[in-house]
């Protein structure tokens, strides 16, 4: 019978307590590294989920003929510009298709202090969905009902301190902040509603009616005010404010089954070159583009874990020199070289296991503490559930690496105890 595990554990534990400062420091280092690795993995999953859920409940996004990713970028994410508009006739033709339940047109091209203006209909508030089919909620006020009324995204309102009742001026063009654009200063809009945060690009949108977009452009031609012509807001209403073109349209179907048929019908429309894309599939495509960066981040985190474990091994091995006489005493008391190996390996395993546990605790603690803020600020809801398959695989890899790393001090001690026997060397 070999000395029982209980004895080894007792010795291991007392020895660790004896060197608690250096061991605690290495445990903290491993813990932080593991927290980083698991945190990155978890955020990666959550970010992907949040990204994939930027828009949900919309079956098709329709725009001018072009790439699907580009269409989604400018229509949903407000990144880049459409090369072409689509005609209002096409929108109405799509709306009239028997399988189509609803259509929400989007007219882009104007901005307000760096935020995109989205011309749309009140149906937007009813049909735009994100996450698990959540609809947009009003933090304050109501949807726009008149030509010169606007609803602000949460970020827009927060950044500039806008409240319901404030009046804002829209600019022509959609450039970055700071660039001076021609302003529609003569036709201010009244804020009638502010949306609650959704963590989607809607937070950074200024929403107005399609008629509002038309109204600020009645005295414009070719992207510039017509010299000498200025039509006062009160007179604008007399004009025909029906849109002639929009940038894109969100389409909901009565039944998802028809989605490919409707898509094909729109893509092969003979009256106008149109593109219809399935947002879910296209989001996935876009994510794969971004994916390279997250892979790199994960690789860096893995490297940090390796560094943490290397530090742990270094501390254990460095301590061994002073502990040679301790090993000799153990030998004299009846420990075999294998038990000496086990004792030293056990110390490293215990330290790295503590590090892994600490790392997990940090991840869950951070998710619980920072979760609400992340949700509000970035629409990221860090999950608090059990580790997923990918995380378990990472944890298993870390555990395997730490076991492997623990062999080193153990082997070293084994070699010392074979060479020294009971002879106490100082």
């Amino acid at each position, binding site marked *: 019978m070999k000395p029982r595990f209980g004895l080894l554990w007792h010795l291991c534990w007392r*020895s660790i307590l004896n060197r608690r400062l250096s061991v605690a420091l290495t445990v903290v280092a491993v813990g932080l590294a593991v927290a980083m690795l698991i945190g990155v993995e978890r955020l990666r999953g959550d970010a992907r989920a949040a990204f994939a859920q930027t828009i949900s409940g919309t079956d098709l996004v329709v725009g001018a003929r072009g790439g699907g990713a580009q269409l989604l970028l400018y229509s949903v994410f407000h990144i880049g510009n459409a090369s072409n508009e689509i005609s209002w006739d096409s929108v109405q033709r799509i709306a009239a298709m028997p399988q189509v339940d609803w259509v929400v047109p989007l007219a882009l091209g104007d901005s307000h202090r760096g935020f995109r203006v989205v011309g749309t209909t009140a149906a937007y508030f009813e049909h735009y969905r994100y996450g698990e089919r959540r609809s947009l909620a009003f933090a304050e006020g109501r949807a726009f009902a008149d030509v010169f009324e606007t609803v602000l995204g949460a970020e827009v309102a927060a950044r500039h301190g806008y409240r319901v009742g404030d009046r804002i001026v829209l600019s022509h063009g959609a450039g970055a902040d700071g660039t001076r654009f021609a302003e529609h200063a003569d036709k201010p809009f009244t804020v009638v509603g502010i949306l609650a945060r959704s963590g989607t690009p809607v937070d950074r949108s200024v929403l107005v009616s399609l008629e509002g977009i038309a109204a600020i452009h009645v005295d414009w031609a070719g992207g510039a005010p017509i010299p000498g012509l200025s039509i006062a807001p009160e007179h604008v209403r007399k004009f025909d404010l029906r849109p002639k073109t929009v940038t894109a349209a969100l389409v909901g179907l009565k039944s998802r089954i028809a989605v490919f048929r409707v898509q094909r019908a729109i893509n092969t429309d003979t009256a106008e070159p149109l593109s219809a894309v399935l947002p879910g599939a296209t989001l996935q495509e876009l994510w794969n583009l971004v994916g390279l960066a997250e892979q790199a981040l994960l690789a860096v985190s893995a490297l940090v874990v390796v560094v943490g474990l290397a530090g742990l091994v270094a501390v254990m091995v460095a301590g061994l020199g002073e502990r040679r006489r*301790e090993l000799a005493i153990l*030998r004299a008391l009846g420990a075999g070289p*294998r038990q000496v190996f086990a004792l030293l390996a056990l110390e490293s395993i215990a330290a790295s296991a503590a590090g892994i546990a600490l790392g997990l605790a940090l991840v869950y603690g951070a998710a619980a503490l920072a979760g609400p803020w992340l949700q509000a600020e970035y629409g990221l809801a860090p999950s608090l559930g059990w580790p997923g398959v990918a995380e378990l695989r990472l944890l298993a890899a870390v555990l395997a690496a730490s076991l492997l790393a623990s062999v080193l001090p153990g082997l070293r001690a084994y070699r010392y105890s074979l060479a020294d026997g009971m002879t106490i060397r100082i």
Partner: protein
Amino acid sequence: MSEAVMVQGLRFRWPGAAADCLAVADFRLAAGERVFLRGPSGSGKSTLLSLIGGVLLPDTGTVAVHGQDLAALPAGRRDRYRADHVGFVFQLFNLLPYLSVLDNILLPCRFSPLRTRRLAEAGTTPVAEALRLAARLDLDEALLGRSAAALSVGQQQRVAAARALIGRPALVVADEPTSALDADRQQAFLDLLLGECAAASAALLFVSHDGRLAGHFDRVADLAALNRADAGAPR
């Protein structure tokens, strides 16, 4: 009763060494016998003790402890046999610094259930025996809870003696246990060790190059005389 130690026809050479370190034709310790082994520095005293402990194996010949040929045991059982039957006291640094004094004394019982069993047969427990030995070796009970690292050298040596003796091993091996002590303390320690070995009827193999201590022993052995390695005995 079997002999505490029997060494016969032993030859041992350190790996990589040019010549044999030890060549001992016959060396014995009767049960309960107290022997003083002397020899100049480097003569192979500690090496012989490692062979008796079963940490080293002879190239030829037999080393038997308490009637058991050590080379006949597999490595794990040999380590265990040492835990069961031999107590060691070294010159310095005998204790595990991260254990309390009491835990250090109790350690052999944790390595060797046989020692615990012997104590149970004698109607006592390891802790009670540790307290008894500590008292006999002049260790204040208040010291027992302290960290072993906090003791004076003399106290450490007495704790090491208590640890070697607990659970009644057949043999106590002491490798220059007094050389770190001053003359008065040397004598006191030796008296305690001899007394306790006699009380436990353990054989004592006491190694030193300080011949002044030899008078208290049953017998004095000289390794220089025993060891034929330098005599160019044929291999």
